[in-house]
């Protein structure tokens, strides 16, 4: 036990210690924690560790296999980058909650049974909400409560699903679950909420842009990718996920194009990227699952990079509205370069990390025969280029000069961005390193002529379209506005409908009660007529009536036997 320590516990113990350290020491200590955790994770053998028996079930608190490990590695990298990026922040709440949140996410990855998973699952929700609350605005407080309700709701549904599943199978092992049973369906819904499935997604665009500058970077890394991991483990090859994923890739594009808040644009594109991973899980072949894991890996890094660059802008300028930004490349050249690297990664330019991962999923879908789906993915890739690849850097750093002059981002942000950008390019150039970590053996070559030419055609024509639209002035202008997303359904329409309905129900209830009252009073009146002392029941029966009753009963008994024989 001494030689191998659970990586999640390292982060959690760190979170317990950090508040008592002086601020100067905190930074190095916090940076050290994910490094130790990663070394522990790397050192442990593949297999089940940390076995306990509780509730009459065997808990597997520390399961390491290739699927969990690749996610674990990138979670630690993301934690490291996120902490480095936030090094200048002197906010104990954010520091602790970031560590607890990362630890909980790692713990959930390594959970080998559903009960352990549930405990970590809820902890991620509770820890992460402080990253939003830490912004300390009234708006952030409201968002945080909405976020917490949905995340804890997901946990409750997960618990219900686990209970049903355990009742059905008697096993709490967290392996392939599938949709064969109601328990599986509940668990899928719980995972789907965290994975921001269509119509369950709006918490993401609601919460991530509302968090602190540094909190968003941390938030974007863990929750959704944890959900992708659980889907890959529990529901690989579940066909409906392909279509869910395809919808996920496509629909956020429209919102992203018209959105003004650039961090919100990134949140939509996060949703779109998750769609690729969900498609990969749904296809469920080795290639597709490898693609999902690889995409999650690179996505965490380049999405963090993009959020970091936008966070740096927000940090320096104080706004992140596209309509108020522009021309920042003069003030923040390094940030601009890192942002472009992130953009090229997410757009899957060859030699950038997105290319080597995303193409695996698309090839996987195509190989499995889902041509329609791969076309949607293709369209979505073009859309990604448009909103994340061009729109984000274009409107913040170029476009019309807003006249804003500010300082370059702080050094720790730049270093964090540099590391992320370096990884983006490194993985893009040397995909073998990443491929060697993937769950299944990889026999895939991204840099074939066909792949490169297809991708470049796609990218260049998308850029052409963007340029053309901007030139003729038809590109949706950046105007200060709020977009209505599906959360409008439950935040505005729902209450309105509920008010309307409750009145209708009220009226209907009144009518129903009136009718029931009528029936009851009718019954009472009838009872009164029957039962009053001169009524047919209560008045003293004549003997002849009784004798008639006797004879009728006798006849009835005889008759019923005559009929029934």
């Amino acid at each position: 036990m001494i030689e191998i320590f659970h990586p999640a516990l390292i982060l959690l113990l760190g979170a317990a210690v950090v508040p008592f350290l002086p601020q100067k020491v905190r930074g190095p200590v916090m940076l050290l924690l994910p490094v130790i955790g990663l070394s522990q994770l790397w050192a442990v053998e593949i297999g089940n560790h940390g076995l306990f028996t509780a509730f009459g079930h065997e808990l597997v608190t520390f399961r390491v296999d290739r699927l969990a490990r690749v996610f674990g590695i990138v979670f630690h990298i993301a934690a490291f980058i996120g902490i480095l990026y936030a090094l200048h922040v002197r906010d104990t709440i954010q520091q602790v909650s970031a560590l607890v949140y990362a630890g909980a996410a790692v713990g959930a990855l390594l959970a080998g049974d559903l009960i352990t998973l549930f405990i970590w699952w809820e902890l991620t929700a509770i820890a992460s909400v402080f990253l939003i609350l830490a912004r300390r605005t009234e708006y952030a407080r409201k968002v945080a409560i909405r976020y917490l309700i949905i995340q804890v709701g997901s946990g409750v549904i997960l618990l219900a699903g686990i209970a049903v599943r355990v009742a059905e199978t008697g096993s709490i092992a967290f392996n392939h679950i599938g949709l064969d049973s109601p328990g599986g369906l509940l668990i899928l819904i719980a995972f789907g909420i965290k994975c921001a499935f269509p119509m369950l997604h709006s918490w993401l665009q609601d919460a991530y842009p509302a968090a602190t500058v540094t909190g968003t970077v941390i938030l974007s890394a863990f929750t959704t990718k944890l959900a992708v991991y659980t889907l890959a483990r529990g529901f690989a090859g579940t066909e409906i996920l392909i279509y869910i994923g395809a919808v996920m890739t496509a629909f956020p594009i429209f919102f992203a194009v018209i959105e003004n808040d650039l961090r919100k644009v990134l949140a939509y594109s996060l949703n779109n990227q998750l769609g690729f991973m969900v498609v990969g899980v749904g296809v469920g072949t080795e290639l597709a699952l490898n693609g999902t894991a690889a995409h999650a890996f690179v996505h965490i890094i380049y999405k963090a990079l993009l959020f970091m660059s936008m966070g740096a802008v927000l940090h320096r300028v104080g706004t992140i509205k596209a309509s108020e930004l522009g021309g920042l490349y003069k003030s923040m050249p390094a940030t601009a370069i890192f942002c472009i690297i992130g953009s090229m990664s997410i757009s899957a330019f060859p030699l950038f990390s997105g290319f080597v991962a995303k193409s695996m999923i698309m090839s996987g879908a195509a190989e499995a025969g889902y041509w329609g789906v791969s076309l949607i993915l293709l369209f979505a890739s073009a859309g990604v280029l448009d909103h994340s690849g061009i729109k984000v850097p274009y409107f913040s750093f170029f476009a019309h000069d807003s006249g804003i002059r500010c300082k370059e981002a702080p050094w720790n942000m730049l270093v964090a961005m540099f590391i992320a950008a370096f990884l983006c390019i490194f993985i893009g150039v040397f995909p073998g390193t990443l491929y060697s970590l993937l769950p299944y053996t990889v026999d895939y070559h991204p840099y074939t002529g066909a792949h490169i030419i297809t991708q470049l055609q796609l990218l260049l024509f998308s850029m052409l379209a963007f340029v053309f639209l901007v030139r003729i002035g038809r590109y949706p202008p950046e105007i200060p506005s709020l977009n209505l997303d599906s959360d409008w359904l439950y935040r505005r329409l729902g209450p309105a409908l509920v008010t309307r309905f409750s009145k209708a129900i009220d009226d209907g209830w009144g009518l129903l009660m009136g009718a029931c009252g009528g029936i009851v009073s009718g019954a009472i009146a009838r009872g009164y007529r029957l039962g009053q002392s001169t009524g047919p029941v209560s008045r003293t029966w004549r003997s002849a009536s009784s004798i008639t009753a006797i004879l009728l009963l006798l006849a009835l008994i005889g008759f019923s036997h005559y009929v029934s024989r």
Partner: protein
Amino acid sequence: MSAAANTVSLASHLPVLQVAVPLIAAPIAFILGSLGAGESARRTSAEVCWWFTFAVSVAILAISGNLAATVMDGTVLSYELGGWAAPWGIEYRIDSVAAVALLIVSGINLITLLYAKHAVVREVPERIRGLFYTAWLLCVTGMLGICATGDIFNVFVFLEISSLSSYILISSGRDRLGLLAAYRYLILGTIGATFFLIGVGLLYGLTGTLNMADIATRLPALAGNQTLIVAFGFLAIGIAVKMALFPLHAWMPEAYTHAPSPVSALLAGTATKVAVYLMIRTMYTVFGVELAFDAMMLGVILITLSTVAVFFGSLAAIFQHNAKKIMAWSSVAQIGYMGIGAGLATVTGLTAAMLHMYNHALMKAALFMALGCLFWRIGSMQIDKLAGMGKRMPWTFSAFVLGGLSLIGVPLTAGFVSKWYLILGVLEQGWWWLAVLIVISSLMAVIYIAKLVETMWFREPAVDAPTGEAPLWLLLPTWALVILNFVFGIYTALPVGVARSAATALMGGN
């Protein structure tokens, strides 16, 4: 054989002594009661007569207690009357079911007799008191005999003994309507007994035997026989008339209303219970569950009629203006509960029926006795006359309220226990609607009890209303029964255990 019988102690003769003692005592009571000629001598002789009856009642309670203790472990006492072996001679057969019924009859008999001593002063003319106790003893004899005997013709004989004597008892009060009520009862009771006799005759024709156990062994071979169906119909209806099962109940509200209070209490506590016992005995032991319930559809008949009884009985009770009549109609409803339990043909259902036999005897006798206390003071049972009497007679009133709670089935009372088992038995069958109906009918019981309580407690008494409690001799037996209601509502193990073992024996012994 006779030599051997002589050497055996008195204990082996208990089954027949249970019946023979009150039977032989009856004419002695008559003689004792008719000795006095003058005014004071008549009073003395009535007094002597009561003490004699009391002694006999103590003796038969002791006997039935002894019998019950003997058979509770599952043994069955069989006594050959006159030394004639079973199929030819008359057999007295005491099993746990019979022992419970005997215990109810002799127990209620003793308590109501204690009560009768003073109650009759107001309600029964002095000159016929000797006759009253004679009839009382004969009535008890008949009911004990029905429970003890294993011979179905003997049952008819005892049925007639108890019926004829109860006609006398009902009409013995000062209330002239009692005569009319007794006459109605006479007509219907005789028809019921005749039906029973016709059924017995048909069974005898079919099987050539009158011994219940013997008939039971021969009947399964006759399944499908049309005569058997007719015999079943006559027996079932005959017993249902004695049970006062709706719609054959018409004699009961009148009879109980106009009988003297101790008679109402005695009959309400025992007569219908014995009829329920007879129904259970005939259908479960003689016909057997398969024949009675599968082939003859007794379950459908009983449960349908009983459910209707529960509702119409409660409904009619709500609207009555005479307090005793409310209780009498309530008995119609309560018989329905026993019928439902017996009609379920499951161990739980039978347990509920037998528990309710026992518990209803306790609660209804207590209520009639509480009403008798009121009558003793007021001289009327009309609701208007009861107004405000609760404050004037607090002990009587509280006894009535507590007995009423048991009747409603409030937890911690005996009534709750039996209703609980009844609902359990109904739910076992999945008949939740019937469970709902039972609960609703209990609410109806709340209404008619509350109606009386409201009258007695919340209304102002009339200006000329009498004051003062009922005499201690009336209150003591009443309170004894009320307390028993709570004792058996709290210590449920004994009655439930006995009822369950009896039910199991009936279900297993078919």
